[in-house]
């Protein structure tokens, strides 16, 4: 009993932070209609900023934390809204575009953090005094008490502000119909700026409070904050009260799991993974089980992510483009093995990225969990190739990835946009935590290259050629997906689901099919990546550093452009070779993604449009200053 209480008190420390993070996400969502996927990245950035101020610049701690939380964070939030999200809202971009923009912001901020402060772990200073108080035989940390106080104050103040007040009504009006709110004299900008300011300030608190208990690294802290997505999901993105309760409960629950020890038996590993990943499980379970999860405004599909029309590229031009691509991709074959080895990651990664094109560009579905599919392909291939011929193992890996893909596809039949994105992300994190990081599954894995009807592919040149064959097959599949009855059915389902159904297209079957094809392809790419390095590295299939970054890169270059995906793969590998770190590509990708609002359809199609002399103009429904003066009282 005493232990239970003691653990509960310890759990409240993390629980209160999770609650604050969740409240921040809910507030921003309710005030702006944007679910900020960059919440964790911003929290990490601000935690680093705080560390920089205190440790390097010698700013007193009593000044630094309030400065970051109450001044710098809100200012950054407002600036971010003005520079990035206001243009999107003014041209009434779809929720899917907003979502990708927050993803771009995430990539940009993580990139900025690594550029400014590197990736080595830092020791972050504590924000609140950490004295230990004794109550009877219980020990309470003073900072936990202060944190709980902060949660209470924040929750109550925000609940009052967004409740039955004038401001609360304005907030709901702006989120429901921005244009009508504008016409009825609501100061739309003020509501949005407030939402972003409060959200960013809360992400700052989250980062500052979490950093001391973890070591401060760009991805580590970010992922912990991303896991707190469980809180807003359980609160169905609306109730601040539920968010507070859910955050605290998850914190306590996580701590209580430490009471029970399962050290042997088949589920020991699973239980140990659960002990540190309760939030991930809660996120996935909440997304799969909670009924009536509905987005505010229009439920967005990814339709708007791909270019607006089915482009009729002239046969000659596409032949030229593919010809150049083939020459570039094949040229490493002329190099000696040492240089060739550095290019071996390109076709494998390209196959994975093309699989994202299949799902997002053609299927119209967002997937933030593709590293999970790719990793499963790699892992199953590696495991199976111990006993079976490598080629059979390869097929086995692809099928394993495909199976998880189909399971992920089921919720996608009914869900779109944000909740599907979160579901795929949750699947990716779950697979990573429970499978890839499970030592009994991934320890001492021996990866071999396949033998193909007696032809050994262990040589670097023959293996690279094999990779190219796989890429060509993937590209042929993509070509078949955009032509013939199948291609038309996919575009039809993307353009109008009602119309497609009325024409006899089985949307559910088509969705599962697209997920299956995409996941099988991702599994193939993942297996190729593992064969490239001759190892299975869970970090190569990270749910944050890989899934989110890959998806953003694909969308930036044009979600329905397979050649763009191949290009992206080349860029990733080249940047890594030039700078020695895979984070070098983050800044440009993030920047381009944030600017996606100005290049609907991706950079490539934007550039081709500019090349043809078409300036992408958007009719912006916006009141002139006179109009604004007329409608506001």
């Amino acid at each position, binding site marked *: 009993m005493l232990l239970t209480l003691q653990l509960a008190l310890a759990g409240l420390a993390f629980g209160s932070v999770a609650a604050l993070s969740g409240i921040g996400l809910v507030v921003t969502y309710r005030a702006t209609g944007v679910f900020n996927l960059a919440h964790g990245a911003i929290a990490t950035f601000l935690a680093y900023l705080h560390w920089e101020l205190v440790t390097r610049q010698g700013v007193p701690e009593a000044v630094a934390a309030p400065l970051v939380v109450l001044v710098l964070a809100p200012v950054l939030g407002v600036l971010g809204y003005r520079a990035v999200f206001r243009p999107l809202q003014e041209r009434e971009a779809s929720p899917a575009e907003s979502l990708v923009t927050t993803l771009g912001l995430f990539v940009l901020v993580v990139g900025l953090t690594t550029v400014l402060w590197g990736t080595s772990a830092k020791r972050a200073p504590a924000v609140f005094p950490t004295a230990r108080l004794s109550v009877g035989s219980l020990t309470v940390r003073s900072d936990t008490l202060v944190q709980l106080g902060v949660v209470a104050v924040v929750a109550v103040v925000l609940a009052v502000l967004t409740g039955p007040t004038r401001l609360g009504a304005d907030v709901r009006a702006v989120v429901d119909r921005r244009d009508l709110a504008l016409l009825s004299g609501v100061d739309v900008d003020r509501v949005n700026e407030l939402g972003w300011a409060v959200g960013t300030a809360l992400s700052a608190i989250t980062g500052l409070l979490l950093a001391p208990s973890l070591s401060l690294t760009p991805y580590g802290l970010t992922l912990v904050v991303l896991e707190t997505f469980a809180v807003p999901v359980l609160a169905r993105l609306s109730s601040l009260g539920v968010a507070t309760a859910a955050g605290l409960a998850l914190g306590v629950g996580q701590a209580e799991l430490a009471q029970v020890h399962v050290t042997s038996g088949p589920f020991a590993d699973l239980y140990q993974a659960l002990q540190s990943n309760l939030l991930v499980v809660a996120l996935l379970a909440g997304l799969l089980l909670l009924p009536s999860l509905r987005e505010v405004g229009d439920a967005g599909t990814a339709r708007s992510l791909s270019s*607006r*029309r*089915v482009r009729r590229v002239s046969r000659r031009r596409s032949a030229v483009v593919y010809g150049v691509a083939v020459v570039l991709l094949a040229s490493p074959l002329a190099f000696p093995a040492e240089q060739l080895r550095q290019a071996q990651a390109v076709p494998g990664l390209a196959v994975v990225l093309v699989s994202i094109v299949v799902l997002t560009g053609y299927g119209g579905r967002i997937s933030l969990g593709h590293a999970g599919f790719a990793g499963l392909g790699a892992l199953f291939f590696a495991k199976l190739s111990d006993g079976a011929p490598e080629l059979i193992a390869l097929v086995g890996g692809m099928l394993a990835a495909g199976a998880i893909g189909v399971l992920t596809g089921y919720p996608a039949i009914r869900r779109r946009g944000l909740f599907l994105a979160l579901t795929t992300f949750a699947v990716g994190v779950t697979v990573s935590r429970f499978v890839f990081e499970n030592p009994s599954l991934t320890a001492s894995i021996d990866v071999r290259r396949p033998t193909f009807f007696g032809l050994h592919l262990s040589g670097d040149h023959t293996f690279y050629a094999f990779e190219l064959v796989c890429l060509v097959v993937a590209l*042929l*599949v993509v*070509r*078949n*997906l955009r032509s*013939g*009855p*199948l*291609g*038309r*059915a996919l*575009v*039809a389902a*993307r*353009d*109008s689901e*009602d*119309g*497609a*159904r*009325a*024409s*006899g*297209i*089985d*949307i559910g*079957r*088509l969705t599962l*099919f697209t997920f299956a*094809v995409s996941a099988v392809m991702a599994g193939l790419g993942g297996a190729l990546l593992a064969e490239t390095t001759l190892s299975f590295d869970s970090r190569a299939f990270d749910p944050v550093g890989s899934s989110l970054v890959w998806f953003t890169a694909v969308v930036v270059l044009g979600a329905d452009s397979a050649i763009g995906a191949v290009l992206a793969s080349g860029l990733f590998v080249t940047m890594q070779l030039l700078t020695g770190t895979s984070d070098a590509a983050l800044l440009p990708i993030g920047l381009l993604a944030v600017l996606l609002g100005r290049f609907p359809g991706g950079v490539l199609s934007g550039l081709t449009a500019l090349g043809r002399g078409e300036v992408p103009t958007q009719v912006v429904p916006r009141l002139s200053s006179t109009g604004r003066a007329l409608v506001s009282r």
Partner: protein
Amino acid sequence: MTVLDARGITKRFGGRVAVDDVSVAVEAGRVSALIGPNGAGKTTLFSCLTGASEIDGGSVLFDGCDVTGLGADERARRGLGRTFQRISVFGSMSVRDNLLVGAEATRRTSLWRGLLGFRDRRASDDLETVERVLVLLGLEDVRDDEAATLSTGRLRLVELGRALCGRPKALLLDEPASGLSDAETDGLRAVLRDVAADGVGVLLVEHDVRLVMDVADHVYALAQGRLLSSGTPEEVAADPAVRSAYLDRSAT
């Protein structure tokens, strides 16, 4: 012959009964019409017939089979074509491709065969159907235009064409004449007669009373979710209940 037979259809939204025990039948080769004031439940009844929404009571028989539990896509493949009040064409496709989808999708094409790039054996039949329908609806001049660029009137025809390409046994049209010019409405009238003459059963929801009186063989009048009256256009128009519920009100 009755091609679509709906009996005792009931649909509730929460506590509100939107459609209350309504029975309608669509005869092959004849045009039936569903009329009623705004909020009478016409479009709701329509979605119940096409399978777009599930029903809380009653049954739908199509072509002699009970299709009550089947989804909209399955009913479409069995030959129940429809158009929408809110136009739902495939905006980024050409007019021809829109119609081609209508012709292809009524067969359950094998997705995996498509993935592997096998040709569809009946592709030439489909193209023939599409060309015939393009001519029938006078859409030849825009066959290669992107659908999103067309006017409302043309889009209604594209939607109708898409449904026709599926070789429907019954055709359900939700306000096909709204947004059409007088000339286009005349054209539509002729097309509806042609289609019915081919043996297709047509059911339309329509506000244009003149069009209904002109082409319908049989009229159902709906008000507040209930069937008020049914019969020939003349009988329904003369029914005092209908006059008070609908015709008079629409005159004001």
